[in-house]
Protein backbone atom coordinates (compact mmCIF):
# COMPACT_ATOMS: atom_id res chain seq x y z
CA UNK A 1 0.00 0.00 0.00
CA UNK A 2 3.04 2.25 -0.15
CA UNK A 3 1.92 5.34 -1.97
CA UNK A 4 4.60 6.82 -4.26
CA UNK A 5 5.27 10.45 -5.14
CA UNK A 6 2.69 12.01 -7.40
CA UNK A 7 -0.14 9.65 -6.58
CA UNK A 8 -2.26 12.07 -4.61
CA UNK A 9 -2.88 15.74 -5.23
CA UNK A 10 -0.80 18.24 -3.31
CA UNK A 11 -3.67 19.25 -1.04
CA UNK A 12 -4.33 15.67 0.06
CA UNK A 13 -0.61 15.03 0.55
CA UNK A 14 -0.24 18.15 2.67
CA UNK A 15 -3.40 17.45 4.69
CA UNK A 16 -2.30 13.87 5.34
CA UNK A 17 1.13 15.22 6.26
CA UNK A 18 -0.46 17.44 8.90
CA UNK A 19 -2.51 14.54 10.24
CA UNK A 20 0.57 12.32 10.36
CA UNK A 21 2.69 14.97 12.08
CA UNK A 22 -0.03 15.59 14.66
CA UNK A 23 -0.47 11.85 15.20
CA UNK A 24 3.25 11.25 15.64
CA UNK A 25 3.42 14.26 17.95
CA UNK A 26 0.67 12.89 20.18
CA UNK A 27 2.28 9.46 20.07
CA UNK A 28 5.67 10.91 21.09
CA UNK A 29 4.11 12.62 24.08
CA UNK A 30 2.23 9.56 25.23
CA UNK A 31 4.71 6.83 24.31
CA UNK A 32 6.81 7.60 27.37
CA UNK A 33 4.05 6.20 29.55
CA UNK A 34 4.15 2.95 27.63
CA UNK A 35 7.85 2.65 27.22
CA UNK A 36 10.80 3.50 29.36
CA UNK A 37 13.08 5.28 26.96
CA UNK A 38 15.82 2.82 27.73
CA UNK A 39 13.47 0.24 26.25
CA UNK A 40 13.61 1.92 22.85
CA UNK A 41 15.53 -1.08 21.50
CA UNK A 42 12.38 -3.07 22.03
CA UNK A 43 10.49 -0.65 19.86
CA UNK A 44 13.33 -1.00 17.38
CA UNK A 45 12.89 -4.73 17.32
CA UNK A 46 9.16 -4.32 16.74
CA UNK A 47 9.98 -1.98 13.88
CA UNK A 48 12.46 -4.44 12.35
CA UNK A 49 9.87 -7.12 12.80
CA UNK A 50 7.20 -5.10 11.02
CA UNK A 51 9.64 -4.28 8.30
CA UNK A 52 10.06 -8.03 7.78
CA UNK A 53 6.31 -8.52 7.95
CA UNK A 54 5.81 -5.99 5.20
CA UNK A 55 8.42 -7.65 3.03
CA UNK A 56 6.28 -10.74 3.09
CA UNK A 57 4.13 -10.96 0.02
CA UNK A 58 1.64 -13.63 0.81
CA UNK A 59 -1.12 -15.09 -1.33
CA UNK A 60 -4.59 -13.84 -0.43
CA UNK A 61 -6.55 -15.38 -3.25
CA UNK A 62 -6.18 -17.34 -6.42
CA UNK A 63 -3.38 -15.59 -8.16
CA UNK A 64 -3.30 -12.50 -5.99
CA UNK A 65 -0.98 -11.59 -3.17
CA UNK A 66 -0.63 -8.70 -0.81
CA UNK A 67 1.51 -7.65 2.10
CA UNK A 68 0.78 -7.43 5.78
CA UNK A 69 0.68 -4.10 7.55
CA UNK A 70 1.69 -5.02 11.10
CA UNK A 71 0.08 -2.07 12.88
CA UNK A 72 -2.25 -4.22 14.96
CA UNK A 73 0.54 -6.47 16.18
CA UNK A 74 2.65 -3.48 17.16
CA UNK A 75 -0.25 -1.86 19.02
CA UNK A 76 -0.96 -5.01 21.02
CA UNK A 77 2.68 -5.77 21.80
CA UNK A 78 4.01 -2.32 22.63
CA UNK A 79 0.92 -0.17 23.04
CA UNK A 80 -0.80 2.07 20.50
CA UNK A 81 1.38 5.15 20.82
CA UNK A 82 4.67 3.33 20.55
CA UNK A 83 3.12 1.39 17.68
CA UNK A 84 2.52 4.61 15.75
CA UNK A 85 6.17 5.55 16.30
CA UNK A 86 7.35 2.14 15.14
CA UNK A 87 5.26 2.34 12.01
CA UNK A 88 6.46 5.88 11.32
CA UNK A 89 10.06 4.74 11.63
CA UNK A 90 9.46 1.77 9.35
CA UNK A 91 7.95 4.02 6.70
CA UNK A 92 10.69 6.64 7.06
CA UNK A 93 13.36 3.99 6.69
CA UNK A 94 11.58 2.46 3.72
CA UNK A 95 11.24 5.86 2.10
CA UNK A 96 14.77 7.11 2.67
CA UNK A 97 16.83 3.91 2.61
CA UNK A 98 14.85 1.68 0.30
CA UNK A 99 13.06 4.21 -1.92
CA UNK A 100 9.81 2.48 -1.08
CA UNK A 101 6.96 4.95 -0.79
CA UNK A 102 7.35 8.53 -1.94
CA UNK A 103 8.99 11.09 0.33
CA UNK A 104 6.20 13.57 -0.37
CA UNK A 105 3.68 10.81 0.31
CA UNK A 106 5.13 10.02 3.77
CA UNK A 107 2.23 11.79 5.42
CA UNK A 108 -0.27 9.66 3.51
CA UNK A 109 1.63 6.47 4.23
CA UNK A 110 2.09 7.16 7.93
CA UNK A 111 -1.57 8.09 8.27
CA UNK A 112 -2.83 5.02 6.43
CA UNK A 113 -0.48 2.33 7.62
CA UNK A 114 0.56 3.72 10.99
CA UNK A 115 -2.13 5.81 12.60
CA UNK A 116 -5.27 4.19 11.15
CA UNK A 117 -4.14 0.60 11.71
CA UNK A 118 -2.84 1.20 15.24
CA UNK A 119 -5.85 3.26 16.32
CA UNK A 120 -8.49 0.95 14.85
CA UNK A 121 -6.76 -2.18 16.09
CA UNK A 122 -6.26 -0.83 19.58
CA UNK A 123 -9.90 0.33 19.82
CA UNK A 124 -11.26 -3.04 18.72
CA UNK A 125 -8.81 -4.91 20.93
CA UNK A 126 -9.77 -2.90 24.03
CA UNK A 127 -13.47 -3.44 23.37
CA UNK A 128 -13.07 -7.20 23.20
CA UNK A 129 -10.63 -7.51 26.08
CA UNK A 130 -12.77 -5.32 28.30
CA UNK A 131 -15.71 -7.63 27.69
CA UNK A 132 -13.76 -10.51 29.24
CA UNK A 133 -11.02 -9.11 31.48
CA UNK A 134 -8.16 -11.31 32.55
CA UNK A 135 -9.01 -13.92 29.98
CA UNK A 136 -6.15 -15.12 27.84
CA UNK A 137 -8.46 -16.44 25.13
CA UNK A 138 -10.07 -13.01 24.90
CA UNK A 139 -6.66 -11.42 24.34
CA UNK A 140 -5.93 -13.82 21.50
CA UNK A 141 -9.40 -13.48 19.99
CA UNK A 142 -9.15 -9.72 20.39
CA UNK A 143 -5.81 -9.73 18.54
CA UNK A 144 -7.35 -11.66 15.69
CA UNK A 145 -10.37 -9.44 15.29
CA UNK A 146 -8.38 -6.24 15.82
CA UNK A 147 -5.89 -7.15 13.11
CA UNK A 148 -8.64 -8.37 10.82
CA UNK A 149 -10.54 -5.09 11.09
CA UNK A 150 -7.52 -2.81 10.97
CA UNK A 151 -6.43 -3.82 7.47
CA UNK A 152 -9.65 -3.11 5.53
CA UNK A 153 -10.08 0.01 7.65
CA UNK A 154 -6.77 1.22 6.34
CA UNK A 155 -7.69 0.22 2.79
CA UNK A 156 -10.99 2.06 2.95
CA UNK A 157 -9.24 5.15 4.28
CA UNK A 158 -6.99 4.89 1.25
CA UNK A 159 -10.09 4.66 -0.98
CA UNK A 160 -11.60 7.69 0.73
CA UNK A 161 -8.40 9.70 0.20
CA UNK A 162 -8.37 8.52 -3.38
CA UNK A 163 -11.94 9.75 -3.89
CA UNK A 164 -10.92 13.14 -2.51
CA UNK A 165 -7.60 13.60 -4.22
CA UNK A 166 -6.34 10.72 -6.33
CA UNK A 167 -4.56 11.73 -9.50
CA UNK A 168 -5.68 8.67 -11.49
CA UNK A 169 -9.08 8.80 -13.18
CA UNK A 170 -10.51 5.61 -11.77
CA UNK A 171 -14.00 5.27 -10.36
CA UNK A 172 -13.78 5.78 -6.60
CA UNK A 173 -16.41 3.14 -5.91
CA UNK A 174 -14.45 0.54 -7.85
CA UNK A 175 -11.29 1.46 -5.92
CA UNK A 176 -13.13 1.13 -2.63
CA UNK A 177 -14.61 -2.24 -3.61
CA UNK A 178 -11.32 -3.60 -4.89
CA UNK A 179 -9.19 -2.30 -2.04
CA UNK A 180 -11.75 -3.32 0.56
CA UNK A 181 -12.21 -6.78 -0.94
CA UNK A 182 -8.55 -7.59 -1.29
CA UNK A 183 -7.77 -6.26 2.15
CA UNK A 184 -10.46 -8.24 3.91
CA UNK A 185 -8.54 -11.28 2.69
CA UNK A 186 -5.21 -9.81 3.69
CA UNK A 187 -6.86 -8.98 7.01
CA UNK A 188 -7.67 -12.64 7.62
CA UNK A 189 -4.01 -13.55 7.14
CA UNK A 190 -2.91 -10.62 9.28
CA UNK A 191 -5.43 -11.61 11.96
CA UNK A 192 -4.17 -15.16 12.10
CA UNK A 193 -0.54 -14.18 12.20
CA UNK A 194 -1.19 -11.54 14.85
CA UNK A 195 -3.19 -13.97 16.98
CA UNK A 196 -0.57 -16.73 16.69
CA UNK A 197 2.20 -14.32 17.57
CA UNK A 198 0.39 -12.74 20.50
CA UNK A 199 -0.60 -16.10 21.91
CA UNK A 200 2.95 -17.43 21.64
CA UNK A 201 4.25 -14.36 23.42
CA UNK A 202 1.56 -14.72 26.06
CA UNK A 203 2.62 -18.31 26.63
CA UNK A 204 6.28 -17.47 27.10
CA UNK A 205 6.38 -13.96 28.50
CA UNK A 206 2.94 -12.58 29.37
CA UNK A 207 4.53 -9.49 30.90
CA UNK A 208 5.66 -8.42 27.46
CA UNK A 209 2.21 -8.06 26.00
CA UNK A 210 1.29 -4.48 26.65
CA UNK A 211 -1.42 -4.21 29.26
CA UNK A 212 -0.84 -7.71 30.64
CA UNK A 213 2.10 -6.92 32.90
CA UNK A 214 2.91 -7.33 36.56
CA UNK A 215 3.11 -10.94 37.66
CA UNK A 216 5.35 -10.79 40.71
CA UNK A 217 5.77 -13.93 42.76
CA UNK A 218 7.36 -14.01 46.22
CA UNK A 219 11.12 -14.55 46.11
CA UNK A 220 12.88 -17.31 48.00
CA UNK A 221 15.98 -16.61 50.09
CA UNK A 222 18.29 -19.57 50.79
CA UNK A 223 20.30 -19.09 53.96
CA UNK A 224 22.15 -21.35 56.31
CA UNK A 225 18.91 -21.60 58.32
CA UNK A 226 16.90 -22.86 55.35
CA UNK A 227 14.57 -21.12 52.95
CA UNK A 228 12.19 -18.26 53.55
CA UNK A 229 10.02 -16.17 51.29
CA UNK A 230 10.26 -12.44 50.90
CA UNK A 231 8.08 -10.04 48.97
CA UNK A 232 9.78 -8.61 45.90
CA UNK A 233 10.80 -5.00 46.14
CA UNK A 234 8.58 -2.75 44.10
CA UNK A 235 10.32 -1.97 40.87
CA UNK A 236 9.42 1.30 39.25
CA UNK A 237 10.10 -0.11 35.86
CA UNK A 238 7.64 -2.78 34.80
CA UNK A 239 9.86 -4.88 32.62
CA UNK A 240 13.47 -5.28 33.65
CA UNK A 241 15.67 -4.21 30.81
CA UNK A 242 17.81 -7.29 31.11
CA UNK A 243 15.73 -9.53 28.93
CA UNK A 244 13.32 -7.16 27.37
CA UNK A 245 12.32 -8.99 24.25
CA UNK A 246 12.87 -12.67 24.52
CA UNK A 247 9.27 -13.52 23.56
CA UNK A 248 9.68 -11.62 20.38
CA UNK A 249 11.69 -14.46 19.09
CA UNK A 250 8.41 -16.28 18.96
CA UNK A 251 6.65 -13.65 16.93
CA UNK A 252 9.61 -12.93 14.80
CA UNK A 253 10.12 -16.63 14.36
CA UNK A 254 6.66 -16.76 12.86
CA UNK A 255 7.47 -13.99 10.47
CA UNK A 256 10.84 -15.28 9.52
CA UNK A 257 9.31 -18.61 8.93
CA UNK A 258 6.77 -17.00 6.69
CA UNK A 259 9.55 -15.25 4.89
CA UNK A 260 11.50 -18.42 4.46
CA UNK A 261 8.65 -20.73 3.78
CA UNK A 262 5.77 -18.90 2.24
CA UNK A 263 7.66 -16.31 0.29
CA UNK A 264 9.98 -18.74 -1.35
CA UNK A 265 7.27 -21.16 -2.23
CA UNK A 266 4.44 -18.92 -3.24
CA UNK A 267 5.37 -15.31 -3.67
CA UNK A 268 7.67 -15.94 -6.55
CA UNK A 269 4.96 -17.68 -8.51
CA UNK A 270 1.98 -15.50 -7.77
CA UNK A 271 1.40 -12.26 -9.55
CA UNK A 272 0.28 -9.53 -7.21
CA UNK A 273 -2.95 -7.64 -7.47
CA UNK A 274 -1.71 -5.09 -9.95
CA UNK A 275 -0.16 -7.58 -12.21
CA UNK A 276 -3.29 -9.61 -12.15
CA UNK A 277 -5.32 -6.66 -13.37
CA UNK A 278 -2.89 -6.24 -16.17
CA UNK A 279 -3.07 -9.91 -17.07
CA UNK A 280 -6.84 -10.03 -16.92
CA UNK A 281 -7.07 -7.15 -19.28
CA UNK A 282 -4.70 -8.86 -21.64
CA UNK A 283 -2.39 -5.96 -21.22
CA UNK A 284 0.75 -7.83 -20.45
CA UNK A 285 1.22 -10.92 -22.53
CA UNK A 286 3.25 -12.67 -19.93
CA UNK A 287 3.43 -11.50 -16.38
CA UNK A 288 6.26 -13.91 -15.87
CA UNK A 289 7.87 -14.88 -12.65
CA UNK A 290 8.97 -12.18 -10.38
CA UNK A 291 10.13 -11.88 -6.87
CA UNK A 292 9.91 -8.42 -5.51
CA UNK A 293 11.02 -9.67 -2.12
CA UNK A 294 8.77 -7.22 -0.43
CA UNK A 295 8.03 -3.64 -1.20
CA UNK A 296 5.30 -4.89 -3.42
CA UNK A 297 2.37 -2.60 -3.80
CA UNK A 298 0.40 -5.70 -4.18
CA UNK A 299 -2.86 -4.31 -3.06
CA UNK A 300 -4.10 -2.03 -5.77
CA UNK A 301 -6.78 -2.77 -8.24
CA UNK A 302 -8.33 -6.09 -8.98
CA UNK A 303 -11.93 -5.10 -9.35
CA UNK A 304 -14.55 -7.66 -8.46
CA UNK A 305 -14.96 -10.61 -6.15
CA UNK A 306 -12.00 -12.78 -5.27
CA UNK A 307 -12.45 -16.37 -4.11
CA UNK A 308 -10.17 -17.55 -1.37
CA UNK A 309 -7.54 -19.65 -3.04
CA UNK A 310 -6.03 -22.90 -2.02
CA UNK A 311 -2.65 -21.25 -1.87
CA UNK A 312 -3.88 -18.83 0.76
CA UNK A 313 -5.21 -21.60 2.95
CA UNK A 314 -1.96 -23.54 2.70
CA UNK A 315 -0.05 -20.41 3.55
CA UNK A 316 -2.12 -19.82 6.63
CA UNK A 317 -1.83 -23.44 7.74
CA UNK A 318 1.92 -23.31 7.40
CA UNK A 319 1.90 -20.12 9.41
CA UNK A 320 -0.02 -21.81 12.20
CA UNK A 321 2.21 -24.86 12.21
CA UNK A 322 5.23 -22.66 12.27
CA UNK A 323 3.93 -20.53 15.10
CA UNK A 324 3.34 -23.60 17.22
CA UNK A 325 6.74 -25.02 16.31
CA UNK A 326 8.55 -21.84 17.19
CA UNK A 327 6.74 -21.52 20.50
CA UNK A 328 7.70 -25.09 21.31
CA UNK A 329 11.29 -24.50 20.32
CA UNK A 330 11.45 -21.35 22.36
CA UNK A 331 10.00 -23.00 25.41
CA UNK A 332 12.34 -25.94 25.20
CA UNK A 333 15.32 -23.70 24.81
CA UNK A 334 14.21 -21.67 27.73
CA UNK A 335 13.72 -24.77 29.87
CA UNK A 336 17.22 -25.80 28.96
CA UNK A 337 18.62 -22.41 29.87
CA UNK A 338 16.94 -22.58 33.25
CA UNK A 339 18.00 -26.11 34.02
Amino acid at each position, binding site marked *: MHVPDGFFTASVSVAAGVVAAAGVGVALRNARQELDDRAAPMAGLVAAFIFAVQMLNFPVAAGTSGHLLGGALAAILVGPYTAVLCMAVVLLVQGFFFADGGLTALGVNITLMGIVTAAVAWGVFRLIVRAAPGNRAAVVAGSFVAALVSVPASALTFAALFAVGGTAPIDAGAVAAAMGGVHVLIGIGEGLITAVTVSSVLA*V*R*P*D*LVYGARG*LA*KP*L*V*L*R*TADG*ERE*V*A*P*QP*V*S*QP*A*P*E*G*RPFRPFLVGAGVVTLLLAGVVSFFASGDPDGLERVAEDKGFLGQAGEHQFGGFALADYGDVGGIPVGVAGVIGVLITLAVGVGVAYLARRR*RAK*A*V*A
Partner: protein
Amino acid sequence: MTLEVRDLAYAYPDGTQALFGVNLSISRGERVALLGPNGAGKTTLVMHLNGILTAGHGSVRVAGLPVEKGNLQEIRRRVGLVFQDPDDQLFLPTVREDVAFGPANLGIRGAELERRVTEALARVGMLEVIDRPPHHLSFGQRRRVAVATVLAMDPEILVLDEPSSNLDPASRRELAEILRSLDVTILMVTHDLPYALELCERSLILSGGTIAADGPTPDLLGNPTLLAAHRLELPYGFAVPQGVPDQAPHAR
Protein backbone atom coordinates in the same frame (compact mmCIF):
# COMPACT_ATOMS: atom_id res chain seq x y z
CA MET B 1 34.56 -2.16 50.70
CA THR B 2 34.50 -1.55 47.00
CA LEU B 3 31.70 -3.96 46.26
CA GLU B 4 29.08 -5.17 48.66
CA VAL B 5 26.18 -7.46 47.78
CA ARG B 6 23.58 -8.24 50.46
CA ASP B 7 20.80 -10.84 50.29
CA LEU B 8 20.44 -10.38 46.57
CA ALA B 9 17.52 -12.31 45.10
CA TYR B 10 16.19 -12.05 41.61
CA ALA B 11 13.56 -13.74 39.48
CA TYR B 12 13.09 -13.22 35.78
CA PRO B 13 9.72 -11.83 34.76
CA ASP B 14 8.50 -15.27 33.75
CA GLY B 15 8.89 -16.34 37.39
CA THR B 16 12.14 -18.30 37.06
CA GLN B 17 14.24 -17.40 40.06
CA ALA B 18 17.97 -17.23 39.40
CA LEU B 19 19.47 -15.75 42.58
CA PHE B 20 18.42 -16.85 46.05
CA GLY B 21 20.14 -14.45 48.43
CA VAL B 22 23.72 -13.72 47.38
CA ASN B 23 26.09 -12.20 49.92
CA LEU B 24 29.60 -11.12 49.06
CA SER B 25 32.03 -8.29 49.54
CA ILE B 26 35.19 -7.37 47.73
CA SER B 27 37.80 -4.92 48.93
CA ARG B 28 39.70 -2.41 46.92
CA GLY B 29 42.57 -3.86 44.92
CA GLU B 30 41.48 -7.48 45.28
CA ARG B 31 41.40 -9.86 42.36
CA VAL B 32 38.57 -12.32 42.89
CA ALA B 33 37.37 -15.21 40.75
CA LEU B 34 33.69 -16.10 40.65
CA LEU B 35 33.42 -19.80 39.87
CA GLY B 36 30.34 -21.85 39.28
CA PRO B 37 28.70 -24.37 37.00
CA ASN B 38 26.50 -23.40 34.05
CA GLY B 39 23.18 -22.00 35.15
CA ALA B 40 24.43 -21.10 38.61
CA GLY B 41 23.37 -17.49 38.10
CA LYS B 42 26.84 -16.03 37.45
CA THR B 43 25.78 -13.85 34.54
CA THR B 44 22.60 -12.80 36.32
CA LEU B 45 24.68 -11.73 39.30
CA VAL B 46 27.08 -9.80 37.10
CA MET B 47 24.16 -7.96 35.48
CA HIS B 48 23.21 -6.66 38.92
CA LEU B 49 26.62 -5.19 39.62
CA ASN B 50 26.10 -2.28 37.23
CA GLY B 51 22.34 -2.05 37.41
CA ILE B 52 21.36 -3.72 34.16
CA LEU B 53 19.09 -5.87 36.27
CA THR B 54 17.38 -4.40 39.28
CA ALA B 55 17.48 -6.42 42.49
CA GLY B 56 14.22 -8.17 43.32
CA HIS B 57 15.32 -8.22 46.94
CA GLY B 58 18.45 -7.14 48.76
CA SER B 59 21.04 -4.60 47.67
CA VAL B 60 24.24 -3.98 45.75
CA ARG B 61 26.59 -1.17 46.74
CA VAL B 62 29.61 0.06 44.83
CA ALA B 63 32.01 2.08 46.98
CA GLY B 64 29.11 2.85 49.26
CA LEU B 65 26.80 3.98 46.47
CA PRO B 66 23.67 1.83 46.16
CA VAL B 67 22.89 0.51 42.68
CA GLU B 68 19.54 2.07 41.92
CA LYS B 69 17.86 3.98 39.16
CA GLY B 70 18.95 7.44 40.28
CA ASN B 71 22.70 6.83 40.12
CA LEU B 72 23.06 4.33 37.31
CA GLN B 73 25.32 6.60 35.29
CA GLU B 74 27.82 6.88 38.15
CA ILE B 75 27.56 3.15 38.89
CA ARG B 76 28.31 2.30 35.28
CA ARG B 77 31.34 4.54 35.35
CA ARG B 78 32.63 2.76 38.45
CA VAL B 79 31.85 -0.81 37.35
CA GLY B 80 33.24 -1.81 33.97
CA LEU B 81 31.75 -4.94 32.48
CA VAL B 82 33.66 -6.88 29.81
CA PHE B 83 31.32 -9.29 28.05
CA GLN B 84 32.28 -12.80 27.13
CA ASP B 85 32.01 -12.29 23.38
CA PRO B 86 34.01 -9.26 22.23
CA ASP B 87 31.76 -9.07 19.17
CA ASP B 88 28.91 -8.09 21.48
CA GLN B 89 30.98 -5.31 22.91
CA LEU B 90 32.51 -3.91 19.73
CA PHE B 91 29.92 -2.52 17.38
CA LEU B 92 31.28 0.66 15.85
CA PRO B 93 33.23 0.95 12.59
CA THR B 94 36.65 1.63 14.11
CA VAL B 95 38.48 0.69 17.29
CA ARG B 96 38.89 4.38 18.11
CA GLU B 97 35.15 5.07 18.00
CA ASP B 98 34.38 1.97 20.00
CA VAL B 99 36.81 2.80 22.77
CA ALA B 100 35.52 6.40 22.79
CA PHE B 101 31.88 5.30 23.10
CA GLY B 102 31.97 4.72 26.86
CA PRO B 103 33.75 7.91 27.94
CA ALA B 104 31.70 9.91 25.42
CA ASN B 105 28.56 8.63 27.12
CA LEU B 106 29.99 10.13 30.31
CA GLY B 107 30.13 13.48 28.55
CA ILE B 108 33.88 13.54 27.88
CA ARG B 109 34.88 15.25 24.63
CA GLY B 110 37.87 16.68 22.78
CA ALA B 111 41.46 16.26 23.97
CA GLU B 112 40.49 14.51 27.19
CA LEU B 113 38.51 11.93 25.19
CA GLU B 114 41.48 11.40 22.88
CA ARG B 115 43.77 10.96 25.87
CA ARG B 116 41.45 8.37 27.45
CA VAL B 117 41.22 6.40 24.21
CA THR B 118 44.95 6.24 23.52
CA GLU B 119 45.77 5.53 27.15
CA ALA B 120 43.30 2.66 27.40
CA LEU B 121 44.56 1.14 24.17
CA ALA B 122 48.15 1.54 25.29
CA ARG B 123 47.40 -0.32 28.51
CA VAL B 124 46.26 -3.38 26.56
CA GLY B 125 48.98 -2.98 23.94
CA MET B 126 46.56 -2.28 21.10
CA LEU B 127 47.46 1.30 20.24
CA GLU B 128 48.64 0.37 16.76
CA VAL B 129 45.18 -0.84 15.68
CA ILE B 130 43.38 2.33 16.71
CA ASP B 131 42.09 3.15 13.24
CA ARG B 132 41.24 -0.37 12.13
CA PRO B 133 37.77 -1.89 12.06
CA PRO B 134 37.37 -4.27 15.03
CA HIS B 135 36.23 -7.14 12.82
CA HIS B 136 39.60 -7.15 11.05
CA LEU B 137 41.39 -8.03 14.27
CA SER B 138 42.12 -11.49 15.63
CA PHE B 139 39.94 -12.83 18.40
CA GLY B 140 42.60 -12.26 21.03
CA GLN B 141 43.11 -8.68 19.84
CA ARG B 142 39.37 -8.06 19.92
CA ARG B 143 39.18 -9.28 23.49
CA ARG B 144 41.96 -6.86 24.44
CA VAL B 145 40.20 -4.02 22.68
CA ALA B 146 37.01 -4.98 24.54
CA VAL B 147 38.93 -4.62 27.80
CA ALA B 148 40.18 -1.22 26.58
CA THR B 149 36.63 0.00 25.87
CA VAL B 150 35.91 -0.49 29.54
CA LEU B 151 39.26 0.79 30.84
CA ALA B 152 38.67 4.04 28.97
CA MET B 153 35.81 4.71 31.38
CA ASP B 154 38.32 4.58 34.25
CA PRO B 155 36.37 2.05 36.33
CA GLU B 156 37.04 1.17 39.95
CA ILE B 157 36.01 -2.43 39.43
CA LEU B 158 36.62 -4.43 36.31
CA VAL B 159 34.21 -7.32 35.89
CA LEU B 160 35.20 -9.86 33.23
CA ASP B 161 32.92 -12.61 31.98
CA GLU B 162 34.97 -15.65 30.93
CA PRO B 163 38.04 -13.62 29.87
CA SER B 164 40.08 -16.63 28.77
CA SER B 165 37.44 -18.38 26.66
CA ASN B 166 38.41 -19.12 23.05
CA LEU B 167 41.91 -17.68 23.43
CA ASP B 168 44.94 -19.51 22.17
CA PRO B 169 47.60 -20.16 24.82
CA ALA B 170 49.74 -17.16 23.85
CA SER B 171 46.81 -14.72 23.88
CA ARG B 172 45.66 -16.22 27.15
CA ARG B 173 49.03 -15.54 28.74
CA GLU B 174 49.23 -12.03 27.27
CA LEU B 175 45.81 -11.19 28.62
CA ALA B 176 46.82 -12.50 32.05
CA GLU B 177 49.85 -10.22 31.97
CA ILE B 178 47.69 -7.26 31.06
CA LEU B 179 45.17 -7.99 33.80
CA ARG B 180 47.96 -8.36 36.33
CA SER B 181 49.40 -5.01 35.34
CA LEU B 182 46.14 -3.13 35.89
CA ASP B 183 45.69 -1.21 39.07
CA VAL B 184 41.98 -1.93 39.54
CA THR B 185 39.80 -4.27 41.54
CA ILE B 186 38.94 -7.28 39.40
CA LEU B 187 36.06 -9.71 39.57
CA MET B 188 36.51 -12.47 37.05
CA VAL B 189 33.73 -14.90 36.18
CA THR B 190 35.26 -18.07 34.84
CA HIS B 191 35.23 -21.81 34.31
CA ASP B 192 38.95 -21.78 33.71
CA LEU B 193 40.16 -22.88 37.14
CA PRO B 194 43.89 -22.70 36.36
CA TYR B 195 43.38 -19.13 35.14
CA ALA B 196 41.59 -18.28 38.38
CA LEU B 197 44.48 -19.80 40.31
CA GLU B 198 47.01 -17.89 38.27
CA LEU B 199 45.37 -14.49 38.63
CA CYS B 200 43.19 -14.42 41.71
CA GLU B 201 44.21 -14.97 45.30
CA ARG B 202 40.58 -15.39 46.32
CA SER B 203 37.65 -17.26 44.80
CA LEU B 204 33.91 -17.50 45.31
CA ILE B 205 31.79 -20.42 44.21
CA LEU B 206 28.28 -19.51 43.11
CA SER B 207 26.00 -22.49 43.01
CA GLY B 208 22.23 -22.78 43.10
CA GLY B 209 21.86 -19.02 43.25
CA THR B 210 23.85 -18.53 46.47
CA ILE B 211 27.53 -18.25 47.40
CA ALA B 212 28.53 -21.79 48.33
CA ALA B 213 32.18 -21.16 49.16
CA ASP B 214 34.51 -18.21 49.66
CA GLY B 215 38.21 -18.51 50.35
CA PRO B 216 41.77 -18.50 49.04
CA THR B 217 41.80 -19.95 45.51
CA PRO B 218 44.40 -22.70 46.23
CA ASP B 219 42.30 -23.92 49.16
CA LEU B 220 39.10 -24.13 47.13
CA LEU B 221 40.75 -25.74 44.15
CA GLY B 222 42.62 -28.15 46.40
CA ASN B 223 39.35 -29.51 47.75
CA PRO B 224 38.07 -32.12 45.28
CA THR B 225 34.89 -32.85 47.27
CA LEU B 226 33.91 -29.20 47.20
CA LEU B 227 34.60 -28.90 43.49
CA ALA B 228 32.68 -32.05 42.66
CA ALA B 229 29.68 -30.89 44.69
CA HIS B 230 29.42 -27.84 42.43
CA ARG B 231 30.22 -29.44 39.09
CA LEU B 232 33.66 -27.85 38.87
CA GLU B 233 36.63 -29.80 37.53
CA LEU B 234 40.30 -29.13 37.11
CA PRO B 235 41.74 -30.01 33.70
CA TYR B 236 43.17 -33.47 33.29
CA GLY B 237 46.60 -33.79 34.82
CA PHE B 238 46.43 -30.45 36.61
CA ALA B 239 47.27 -30.37 40.28
CA VAL B 240 47.18 -27.29 42.45
CA PRO B 241 50.82 -26.45 43.14
CA GLN B 242 51.69 -26.00 46.77
CA GLY B 243 52.78 -22.46 47.54
CA VAL B 244 51.93 -20.93 44.21
CA PRO B 245 54.84 -18.66 43.29
CA ASP B 246 52.72 -15.93 41.73
CA GLN B 247 50.63 -15.27 44.81
CA ALA B 248 52.63 -12.30 46.01
CA PRO B 249 50.22 -10.25 48.10
CA HIS B 250 49.24 -7.21 46.14
CA ALA B 251 46.44 -5.75 48.23
CA ARG B 252 47.17 -2.13 48.74
